[in-house]
Each structure stands twice: as structure tokens, then as C-alpha cells.
């Protein structure tokens, strides 16, 4: 009896210490998580602050007279589309004299450079428009877009502004005429890259990234899982397989730029595959993703209880039936999680793609894995490098789009893991 009470007293005495330790660890973990969240929040807030303006785009809506003197059916697709646009826009600008060349230039410059091509495409598609008046909504050029979003302060001295007083006055006339609107900027998603920020979009980069990721997945997923299954389930455990294991871990740690150089000399140099192609990009990314998938798959296979293997083998299942019928399905959530995390890394990878020329300036979306393209991260790289003000906010917007995809992929990984997780 005495012995028992003393045990309890000892336990109680030590409990205080143990509880203190536990609280300390909990606090440490909590503060680490808070710190991580703080950093993430800072990143996202700063990106939103600088990038949110790129999600809307200033447009001007006005009546355009498709002047038969400027645009003749016989000369299509050539014609004085810019002149027709300028003349029509000038209708909203009382007191502006188009016969002055400099003024006419300024009026033309209010509109995005893409406006005339937009009008041209409309007229080419339907020549009966010639001689008619149509309502047109087109983006304004970058300086006016900035002005409308508050990026240009009319109170700064004129010589320090990208727009002089006269230009600002013209824009205010358009605002007064109720022609200016600021709708959601779908062009950011549905346009390809352009020299003009108000027209530049991510379509090419999105399609390029999609192709590259598809190629990367098709190569790295089967090869990675195959290699992992072989190493984990079939390969004899000896010095040689240890060597392979060490080297796969090394491969996962190789800086990505090295893979880019390798791809440049092997895929492009020897195999003669085209530069800037998503196919080559995907193959390069596959080199980097494969070790990640192999390591994740092996860990997932290892975590399947050996009793499951014994149960299947004991019933006379062949090793192959055991692996594909029992072990692999149980390991699948872990494998998928690893794969998606690997692909998310690949989606954000920049350096190797720069080396194989996926930072080329390409104004049309790729129509296949072999045509030149950019990817999201390389597009961000290009835009970040561009001097125009409009690209600064687009860079942040593109980063937000990329982060959106990454978060989606990671969410899918978590969803898959919880959906397929099994209890044994």
C-alpha cells in the first residue's frame, strides 16, 4: 500500500515536468506555423497589392464609322483602319483638330495598338460592315490604362509624366462622354503575349505549361512508379541497389539548372528536337520530377504493412499479383500525393526552361507540343524583365495565377490523400 502511494506521488511530481515540456513543444510548433503563415500572407498581400490592377483593363466603347474612303473591300485585309478609328474617336473629342499630324497621332495612341487589328478582323469577316457605323469596345493603350487606374498622377509636373496635359484632357473628355469602362480583364487569360502590355495575356504560357506538364507527367509517372516498384519490391537488396538508391537521392538534389544544360545538349543538341518546344520542356521537367516520384512511391510502398504482402503471397499470388493487386492500390494515395507535389514543383520550375529557350517572345499560343511556347514561370520572367509599367502589374497578376494553380494542385493532393486513405 505504501509502495503504491509513493509511485503515484512520483508520477505526479514528474507529470508537472512532462506537461511543461509538452506545452513548450506545442508553443514552438504553433509559433512556427504562425511564422510560415505570416510569410505566406505577406507574399500574397504584396502580390495582390501590385497585381490586382491587372485583373481589370480600361476599355473605351465608341461608335466607329467604317469609312469606305479609308477601307475598300478590294484592298482587304489592308486599309486605313487606324485612320478610321482615329476619325471616329475624334467625334467624342470636341475641339481636337485631326488635320494636325501630331494631334492625330495622339488620338490614335489613346487606343491600344491592337484596336486596328480587331477592327480589321471584324471587317474581313464581314465586308458588308463597310460604310456602316458599329459600336466597338477596345482596350486603351497602357499609359491611359495606368491613368485610369490611378497609376499616373495628373498633379506631378508635366515633364515627369508619360501623358501631357493635353492627353489627359482628351481622356477626361472621353470619361465625360461616358465611353470609358473598366471590365474584368479576360485578355489576361485569353490573349497570347504581346509587346503591348494592355494586350499581353497568358494564353500561350498556360497552354505551353499544360503541354509541358502533360509530357512531364506521361514520362515521369510511369517511369518513376516502375522504377520504384522494381527497386522496392523486386530488386535484390545488395550493394548495387544501395548505390542506385543513393544516386536517385542525389538526382533529386541536383540543381535544376543542371538539368537544363543536360537537356540543351542532349535533347536539342543530339536528338535535334526544336528549341522552345513544350515537348523538350516537359522532358526536361520529367528528369527532375522522376526522382521525386520515385522517392515518394518507395516511401508509400514501404509504408504498406508487410503482413498484406505475406497474406497475398501465402495464398499463392505471384509477386506481380501481390504488388499490383494489393500493395500498389494501398500505396496509391501516397504515390499520387508525391506525384502532384512533384508536378507542382515542375510547374514552377524556371531555370531549365530558360536554358532550352522557353523564354522566347511568342505572340501566338502553341498549337502542339512541338511549336514554340513559353510557360507560366518563364512568362513571368519575361514580363518581369520588361520596362513598360503595365507589365509590372501583369507580372504580379501572372504570379498570382501561377500560385492559384499551385494551390489547386496541392489541394487536389490533400483531397486525394484523404479520399483514398484506408484504415487497416
Amino acid at each position, binding site marked *: 500500500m505504501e509502495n503504491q502511494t509513493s509511485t503515484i506521488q512520483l508520477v505526479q511530481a514528474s507529470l508537472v515536468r512532462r506537461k511543461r515540456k509538452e506545452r513548450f513543444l506545442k508553443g514552438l510548433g504553433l509559433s512556427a506555423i504562425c511564422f510560415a503563415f505570416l510569410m505566406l500572407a505577406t507574399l500574397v498581400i504584396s502580390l495582390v497589392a501590385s497585381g490586382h490592377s491587372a485583373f481589370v483593363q480600361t476599355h473605351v466603347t465608341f461608335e466607329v464609322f467604317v469609312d469606305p474612303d479609308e477601307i475598300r473591300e478590294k484592298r482587304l485585309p489592308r486599309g486605313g483602319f487606324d485612320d478610321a478609328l482615329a476619325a471616329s474617336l475624334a467625334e467624342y473629342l470636341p475641339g481636337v483638330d485631326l488635320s494636325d499630324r501630331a494631334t492625330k497621332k495622339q488620338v490614335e495612341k489613346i487606343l491600344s495598338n491592337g484596336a486596328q487589328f480587331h477592327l480589321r478582323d471584324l471587317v474581313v469577316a464581314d465586308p458588308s460592315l463597310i460604310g456602316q457605323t458599329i459600336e466597338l469596345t477596345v482596350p486603351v493603350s497602357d499609359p491611359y490604362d495606368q491613368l485610369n487606374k490611378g497609376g499616373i498622377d495628373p498633379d506631378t509636373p508635366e515633364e515627369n509624366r508619360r501623358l501631357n496635359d493635353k492627353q489627359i484632357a482628351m481622356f477626361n473628355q472621353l470619361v465625360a462622354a461616358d465611353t470609358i469602362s473598366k471590365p474584368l480583364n479576360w485578355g489576361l487569360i485569353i490573349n497570347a503575349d504581346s509587346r503591348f502590355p494592355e494586350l499581353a495575356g497568358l494564353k500561350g504560357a498556360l497552354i505551353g505549361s499544360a503541354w509541358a506538364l502533360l509530357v512531364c507527367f506521361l514520362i515521369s509517372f510511369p517511369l518513376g512508379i516502375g522504377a520504384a516498384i522494381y527497386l522496392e519490391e523486386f530488386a535484390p*537488396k545488395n550493394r548495387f541497389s544501395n548505390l542506385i538508391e543513393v544516386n536517385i537521392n542525389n538526382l533529386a538534389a541536383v540543381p535544376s539548372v543542371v538539368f537544363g544544360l543536360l537537356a540543351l545538349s542532349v535533347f536539342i543538341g543530339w536528338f535535334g528536337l526544336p528549341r522552345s518546344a513544350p515537348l523538350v520542356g516537359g522532358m526536361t521537367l520529367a528528369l527532375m520530377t522522376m526522382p521525386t516520384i520515385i522517392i515518394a512511391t518507395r516511401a508509400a510502398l514501404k509504408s504498406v*504493412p*508487410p*503482413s*498484406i*504482402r*505475406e*497474406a*497475398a*503471397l*501465402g*495464398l*499463392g*499470388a*505471384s*509477386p506481380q*499479383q501481390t504488388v499490383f*493487386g*494489393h500493395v500498389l492500390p*494501398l500505396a496509391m494515395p501516397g504515390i499520387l500525393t508525391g506525384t502532384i507535389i512533384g508536378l507542382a514543383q515542375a510547374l514552377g520550375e524556371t531555370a531549365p526552361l530558360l536554358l532550352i529557350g522557353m523564354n522566347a517572345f511568342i505572340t501566338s499560343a502553341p498549337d502542339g507540343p512541338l511549336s514554340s511556347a513559353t510557360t507560366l514561370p518563364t512568362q513571368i520572367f519575361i514580363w518581369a524583365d520588361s520596362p513598360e509599367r503595365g507589365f509590372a502589374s501583369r507580372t504580379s497578376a501572372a504570379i498570382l495565377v501561377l500560385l492559384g494553380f499551385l494551390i489547386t494542385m496541392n489541394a487536389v493532393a490533400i483531397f486525394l490523400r484523404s479520399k483514398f486513405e*484506408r*484504415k*487497416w
Partner: protein
Amino acid sequence: METAAETAAPKITAKNVDVFYADTQALHNVSVDIPDRQVTAFIGPSGCGKSTFLRCINRMNDTIPICRVSGDITLDGQDIYDPNVDPVQLRAQVGMVFQKPNPFPKSIFDNVAYGPRIHGLSKDRAELEGIVEKALRRAALWDEVKDRLDTPGTGLSGGQQQRLCIARAIATRPEVLLMDEPCSALDPIATAQIEELIQDLSSRFSVVIVTHSMQQAARVSQRTAFFHLGNLVEFGNTDDIFTRPSDSRTEAYITGRIG
């Protein structure tokens, strides 16, 4: 019965079997003849190598990389460690119920149907269902699970899982059934049903059972092997082992002085 055991050709013979786990020797020079159509019981204190020897008979030890087996084991006169012998086929012939219940994380039906499926034992779904029902009935589990055959086998209780694993093993109709403590988690009623099953099976097959219950060994087996510290101390007719043990260690064990 005694004469039958001695005259009939043994189903399994083991000669001079040594087993090593890495550098430690788990079995020393074990030789036994396991008769056909009889129940052989392995008894002995924990850690003496009963499971290890059982796993040699269907080559499950192959799956442990550090395990090394030497000596001869034959099944119907054929050396099972011969390079020409396919362990997959051997394990279809020699079924096993493991010491720890290990149902697949699949439905109860799929657990039992797995063996018949991979070996193509049924022509159609109806026949497969018949096999599954029969196996579950013989393992004394049918009444408890007949309404939830599509629920996971891992959701059963420990004793139910044990019977599920027995049902799964007998569904493939092996020639030899190795049972490693098949009743360790069962109540007396289920134990009696499994013992009945073992008797029933032994009319056609050879059954080897590891047990910690002397009474069970005495009840179900015709032959008993006593293992101690990796040695086969004594092997003979169950009656003799329990009434007239020739080795003092056997006597000490069955009277409860070592174990």
C-alpha cells in the same frame, strides 16, 4: 491410427533443417516427417522457432531477406527448395494461416474470393459465391457476416479476422494447411468449431497447427512435435508425448514448469 501414421508415406519430410536470421541461428538441425491426412501439432515455449519452421514449409521465409534456410524439405518426395520449384505454386498447394490475422483491406467477400479468383477455381460468379459461403461456414464465420459480405474485412473483430483468414486459406483448397495459432483470439465456442474444422480437413489433407494450448494439441492432433530453443526435442504420437514423454524438457513443458 498409429500404424497408419507409420506406414503411410509422409506428406512432408524435413531433414537437417537449419534456419538463420542474419547471424543468429533460429533452428538447429530439425528433422520431422509430417504424415498425410493427419493433424500434426507444434508446441513449445515462445520464441522457440515454431513459426519459423512452419514458414519454411511453404517458403514464406523467402520473403525475409535476412533469412537463410539449409537442409532438405520435401513435399510428396519433391524437394521444395529445388530451383525448379515455383514458390507460387508451392504456396497454392501449401496454405497458411498466419499468427497475426492479416485480412486484406477489401470486402469480406473479396478476401475469401481472392485465392479462388487468382487460381481460377470457379467458372462463374455463382460458383465463386458458393465457394466463399462454404469456406465461411466451415470457418464458423458465416452466420456473423452473411449480411455484410461487402463490408471491409479489416472492420471485423480480432477473432472474426482470424476466422476470416482461415476461411480465406481453405477457400483455395490446399493440400497442406499450416495454421499458426489459429485459435489464439477465439472464444471457446469458436475454438471448438475451428477444431472441428481441423478434424474435418484432416480427413483429406495434412494439417499442421502451432498452438500454445496443450489441451488443444491433445484434442486435435495425432502427432506432436515439441520445440525448445530452436531444437526439435521430441516428435511422436500425441498420446505418447503427453503421457510418456521421453525427454525431461518435454515433461517439464507439458507439466507447466518451463514455457
